[in-house]
């Protein structure tokens, strides 16, 4: 669960339509209309990245009158589907995927089960990426990948499909890097041997 305390705003008149704010927006809250940025307040998760990025310095953050709560409740989705997705992705339910908002893998998986098919939708639904916007991305992409989402990168380098995990590495990696600790880490983090490589050919 993320409490979103701020919302982005801008002075549209001097906006040049460069789209840099749009590209760095994690939740797809910014769109372009007549070459001017437009912000969807409800979709904005208050990360402030657009304000920092804007080369014209015409954007700002303002406190919301009431914090906006972004969360997907596990009780709203099929628990078995969430568990199956986590297993397929090789993620433990309780691990904090977004360590800024402390959003666990189970909630990200629930967002995917609930219908999110893009990283932007996952971020908008859960509030993940409202902090640093960096370290939560691969697990979220991996859950989308495991659910069979289209991993074609969107226009404008918003994100790239990079989801390699410990469970995926082929034997040639450990042969080339015998001190890679791949096998011992697999045994430490998954002693029951539940996780396997993500197989694109298997049906989600």
């Amino acid at each position, binding site marked *: 669960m993320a409490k979103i305390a701020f919302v982005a705003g801008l002075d549209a008149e001097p906006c040049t339509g460069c789209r840099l704010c749009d590209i760095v927006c994690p939740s797809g809250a910014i769109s372009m209309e007549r070459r001017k940025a437009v912000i969807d307040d409800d979709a904005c998760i208050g990360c402030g990245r657009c304000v920092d990025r804007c080369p014209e310095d015409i954007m700002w953050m303002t406190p919301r009158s009431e914090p906006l709560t972004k969360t997907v409740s596990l009780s709203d989705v099929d628990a078995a589907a969430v568990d199956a997705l986590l297993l397929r992705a090789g993620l433990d339910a309780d691990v904090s995927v977004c*360590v*800024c908002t402390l959003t666990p893998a189970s909630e990200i998986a629930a967002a995917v089960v609930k219908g999110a098919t893009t990283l932007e939708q996952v971020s908008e639904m859960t509030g993940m990426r409202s902090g*640093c*916007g960096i370290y939560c*991305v691969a697990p979220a992409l*991996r859950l989308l990948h495991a659910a069979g989402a289209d991993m074609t990168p969107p226009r404008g*380098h918003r994100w790239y499909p990079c989801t390699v995990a410990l469970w995926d590495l082929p034997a040639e990696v450990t042969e080339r890097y015998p001190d890679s*600790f791949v096998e011992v880490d697999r045994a430490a983090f998954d002693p*029951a041997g539940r996780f396997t490589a993500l197989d694109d050919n298997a049906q989600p």
Partner: protein
Amino acid sequence: MTTVPSPPHFMPSVYGPPPRPHVAGLPDMTSVSVQELFPSIGPAIYTNHLDDLDAVRAATRDALEHVDMSRIDVDDSVNVLASEHGFGMMGGWAYAEMIKTIREVVVARTGCRDVRLRLAIYRGFHEADEVRDHFGFDEAFDGKVKGLGPFDRGVAVDTVVGRMYLVNRAFDAAKFIHAYYDDPREMYFNRLLYKSFKSFCMSYARFETRSVYHSLFGSRSGSVIPRALFDSEFIQQRYAFSSVLRTSPAGVTGIDATTDLYAIDRRITASHLATYGRMQRLFQEIDHCVAVWDGGRWGYYLHAGGLIFGTLLTNHHDSFDLDAPVVAGFLQVPDAPVNFSRNKALRGIVVNQAWVGAGIPYVTMPFTSPMYIVGDEQAQLWREDPANPHLAARATVVPTVEDGIRLAMANGGTDRVIVFDGSYGNITCNPEMANHLRERAPDVDRLVAEQLLPKWLAQRGLA
């Protein structure tokens, strides 16, 4: 031996409050020399001040003299890749001097004129401009300076571990030079396992690659990612050589430069286990204290005696013991999770001055360690920081740093204060902490020399 604390000056930034006087100037502050604590740590050629930069320049020239630069043709374009954290070491001037000298030597040796600087930053879009202006890089590089960060356009790189994404701007030249530093920094994450390669999956990489490295691998197995990137055809076709600013807790010890990054890494690892290894173990002997953030970087990355604050925060485990699966990290051993944002010895943290914006991994720290922010203006920065949504609400705002230290000590029941103000060569602290460190250092010295260092070296094939 008591030395006058003299932390480095630092770069003003939009990501932090206006610079304030250092805590080191308070009348009840002192400092303890790292070489007094550990005589085996040799002297430095540069510590915290500008007057020794000639030594850094000379060391860079000496190191580069024997480097094979035949991979650089006269008509090539060459990117010198610099990483942001080097500018947080001792005020950043030594790293900047190495970078400027690299350009001069490359131009003189190869005849290549198109030598550009690429400044890899963490995540703030103004960081690179601030660094460029503060250190005079436009003048040194004829204006050929650009920043790059994790949100910039990527380039796909196929590696033995799969396809990764680096930042295109880092590699928009025919060749590149890996201009690095050896700050062990987050040794609880990198475990000093091929640390010299880390920028290939962090500074030079898109956020997806950084996330894979940190979130989908353990802190030991993650070391395969930067190596796979470095060894990729994409990188090897462009790689010219490496030049690394070498340090110990005493300060800059020299420059190591060669085309063989693996050889540099082995030398750094062996040296660091002996020097930073002692300091890390000494931090584990601090059983109660108040810490002060007092510098011009993110609080987590501010140095005291060459070690960052994060080392104190995570000193619940031996970072260098590779038998431990986790010291800090996202993947956890079932039934034995490690809360790496908690150090029970840390009875309070006083924020005199530090940048906001780097939430990880101290987002949960305010839940367990009381925090005291000096001044409402600075507190407002934290209230508006989405990367730390819990910090400001849980912190106490105090009018002065003296008030913060006094309150933290009283509430925490400790008489010891350690200050993270960017210092190498010494630790700024109060007399009680200085006495404690002096008392514990001899036992730590013996423990590391006789037991820990042999094990750490053997675990890395360096015995």
